[in-house]
C-alpha cells in the first residue's frame, strides 16, 4: 500500500515537473515580445530613447534580460516561494492575485457542471438501458448532445435564452451595476449569470456520460456473472445493481481522463459568455503575450488535472478490488 502510494506520488511529481517545464517553454517560443506589447498598449512616450529606457527597465524588472537557463532556474525558485511573477497585461497586479480572483468562478462553474453531469448522466444511462422505448428515444438525443461542440451549444443557448426570450444575461459573472457583496441580491444575480454557462457544459457532459453508461450496462447485463445470477433466479434488481457497480468503474476512469478536456471546454464556454474564469483569463493572457499569466493559468490547469487523477487513483483503490490485488502483486 505504502509502496504503491509512494510510486504514484513519484510519477505524479515527475509529470508535474515535465508539464511545468513545457508550460514555461511554450510562451517563450511564441513570436512577439510581452514588454513591447505592454508599452504599446499604454503608449507612454513617442520618444524612441525614452521607450528604449523603459523597455530595458521593464526587461530587468521581469528578469527577461537574463539568459534563458537562468530565467528557468529563477522561475522554479520563485515557484517554490509561491511567486508566479507579475502580470504584464494587468500590470502591476501579481499573477497570484489575478488567479485568486478568477479561480472561485471556475470552481463554482466547473465542479457542479462536471460532477452533476457525470452523476445524472450515469444514472440516466443506466435507467435508459432498461427500457427499449426509452432507449430508442434517448440514444440518438444523447449522441447529438455529446457531438455538439461546446461553443456552438453555448452560442445557441445564449441566443435563445438571452436574446430571443431575454430571460438570462449573456455576459459576465454578475451585473455591471452591482459590486461583489455578501447580499441576497448579489447571490441571486450571480446565479442568474451562472446558469447558462453551467447549462451548456452540463448538457454536453450529461449526454456523453449517458451514452457511455448505457453501453456499459448493456455489456455488463450480458456478462457471465449476470447470466449466472439469472440462471439462479435472482431478481432483476440484484442483476442491475451488480451491472451498475461494474459499469461505473470505467466511467470513473473516464471522468479522470475527461477532466483535462473539460478545462479546455470551459475555456470556450467562458469566452462565449465572457465569464471571468481561468479560461477567459488565459485567452486574454495569450492575446497579450503575458508570459507570467499564461504560466499561471496553465499551472492551475496542470495542478487541477493531476490532483483529480490522483484522487481517482485513490477512489479506485476503494471501489475495485482488482486494483488492490494488482498493487499487492507488484510490491511482492
Amino acid at each position: 500500500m505504502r509502496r504503491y502510494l509512494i510510486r504514484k506520488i513519484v510519477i505524479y511529481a515527475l509529470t508535474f515537473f515535465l508539464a511545468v517545464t513545457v508550460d514555461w517553454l511554450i510562451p517563450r517560443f511564441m513570436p512577439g515580445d510581452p514588454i513591447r506589447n505592454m508599452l504599446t498598449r499604454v503608449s507612454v512616450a513617442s520618444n524612441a530613447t525614452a521607450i528604449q529606457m523603459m523597455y530595458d527597465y521593464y526587461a530587468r524588472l521581469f528578469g527577461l534580460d537574463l539568459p534563458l537557463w537562468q530565467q528557468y532556474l529563477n522561475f522554479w525558485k520563485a515557484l517554490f516561494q509561491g511567486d508566479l511573477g507579475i502580470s504584464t497585461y494587468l500590470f502591476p497586479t501579481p499573477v497570484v492575485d489575478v488567479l485568486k480572483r478568477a479561480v472561485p468562478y471556475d470552481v463554482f462553474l466547473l465542479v457542479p457542471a462536471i460532477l452533476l453531469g457525470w452523476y445524472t448522466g450515469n444514472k440516466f444511462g443506466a435507467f435508459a438501458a432498461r427500457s427499449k422505448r426509452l432507449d430508442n428515444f434517448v440514444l440518438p438525443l444523447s449522441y447529438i448532445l455529446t457531438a455538439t461542440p461546446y461553443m456552438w451549444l453555448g452560442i445557441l443557448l445564449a441566443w435563445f435564452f438571452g436574446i430571443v426570450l431575454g430571460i438570462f444575461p449573456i455576459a459576465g459573472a454578475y451585473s455591471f451595476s452591482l459590486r461583489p457583496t455578501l447580499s441576497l441580491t448579489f447571490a441571486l444575480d450571480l446565479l442568474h449569470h451562472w446558469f447558462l454557462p453551467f447549462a451548456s457544459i452540463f448538457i454536453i457532459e450529461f449526454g456523453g456520460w449517458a451514452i457511455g453508461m448505457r453501453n456499459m450496462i448493456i455489456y455488463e447485463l450480458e456478462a457471465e456473472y449476470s447470466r449466472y445470477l439469472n440462471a439462479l433466479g435472482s431478481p432483476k434488481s440484484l442483476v442491475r445493481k451488480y451491472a451498475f457497480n461494474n459499469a461505473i468503474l470505467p466511467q470513473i476512469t473516464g471522468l479522470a481522463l475527461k477532466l483535462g478536456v473539460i478545462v479546455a471546454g470551459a475555456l470556450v464556454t467562458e469566452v462565449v459568455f465572457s465569464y471571468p474564469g481561468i479560461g477567459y483569463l488565459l485567452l486574454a493572457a495569450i492575446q497579450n503575450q503575458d508570459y507570467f499569466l499564461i504560466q499561471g493559468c496553465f499551472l492551475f490547469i496542470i495542478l487541477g488535472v493531476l490532483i483529480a487523477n490522483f484522487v481517482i487513483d485513490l477512489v479506485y483503490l476503494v471501489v475495485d478490488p482488482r486494483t488492490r490485488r494488482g498493487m499487492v502483486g507488484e510490491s511482492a
Partner: protein
Amino acid sequence: MGLKVENLTVYYQTLRGDVRALEHASFQLADGEIMGLAGESGCGKPPLGHSLIVLFPPMKYIAGRVEVDGEEIPIWDAEGMNTYRFRKISLIPQYAMNAMNPIRKIGKMIGELLEARGVDYKDMLPELKRRLDLVSLPHEVLNMYPIELSGGMKQRMVMVISSLLNPSLLIADEITSALDVATQKAVAEMLVEFRERQFINNLIVITHDISILYQIADSILIMYAGVLAEKAPTKSIIESPRHPYTRLLISSLPEVGVRFAEKRLMGIPGNPPLLLNPPAGCRFRERCPLAYERCLEEPPFIEVDKDHFVACWKEYENHAQAR
C-alpha cells in the same frame, strides 16, 4: 419421482428463420439417476439442458412439458421460472470461471443472492461451510474475491453455490472442459458425492467427453442433430450400443491398451446436417451405413430393451420381430 420430459421442442430464432435445435425430446430419469448427455458439437445438447432452466431468447419454446418430482415446471415462462430456479432446478454453467461478480467478495455475493431469494444467509452459513469442507475449499474463500481463486477452486465454488438450496435437478454444463485431467476426475467425483448425500436428486451432465460419463453416469443419452438417438444405462451404451450413430461414436473413442499405430482410430465421415432446414426422416440417414428406404420417415424413440431407448428403424424392426 425424478425428471420427466415429454415431447420437448425448442427452436432458436435467427434472422434466417428458426433453427430446429431440439425436437420431440421425451425421456425420464429415475430417482437419483445421473444422466450424461453426449453427442457431437451442434447436435442439441445445450438446447436440451438450457431449456430446462434458462429458456431465454433467442431460444423459443414450441411444445412439450417438463415435470420435476411430479410437479409441472413452466419452462416457457421466463419470469415465473424464477420460483423454481436454484430451489428446484439449478445450473452449473460452462463459464464457471467467470460466473461470480468480480468486484464482490464471494461470501457477500452468496449472501446477497440468498437474501434476494428469501433465504437467510446466517442460517445457511453452517451448511455452506460444511459443503466447502466437502469440496476441500478453505472457509476463507468466502472472504475473498473471485480473482484470488484458481480455476479449479472457482469451479468447485460454483458447484457449491449452485447446489446450495438442494435442487431436485442439477444441470452441469461442460464443467470439466476447462480443467486438467486430474481435476476433472475430482470434480466429477464431487458431483457423485453430492448425489450420495442427497444435496441433489437428479444430475444431467452435458459433455462431449464420454470417458468422464463412464466414470460417473448411471445412464447416457446420445443426441444427434437436435433429436434423441439413444438412451441406455452407461454400460449398455459403451458395450452394446444399438443406434448406428452411437456405435460409430463409441468406436471413434480411443481404448486403453490398444496401440493405434496398428489400428487406425476411425472418425465418423461427414458432418451433422444444418438445423435451419433439417432433412425429413432420420436425421442421421446421410451418414448412416445402414440407411434404407424406411429411413425417409422419422423413426420413433422406443424402448427396445429394459431402460434402453433407440430411435432407429432397424432396431424397431428387430424389436418387432423378437416380439
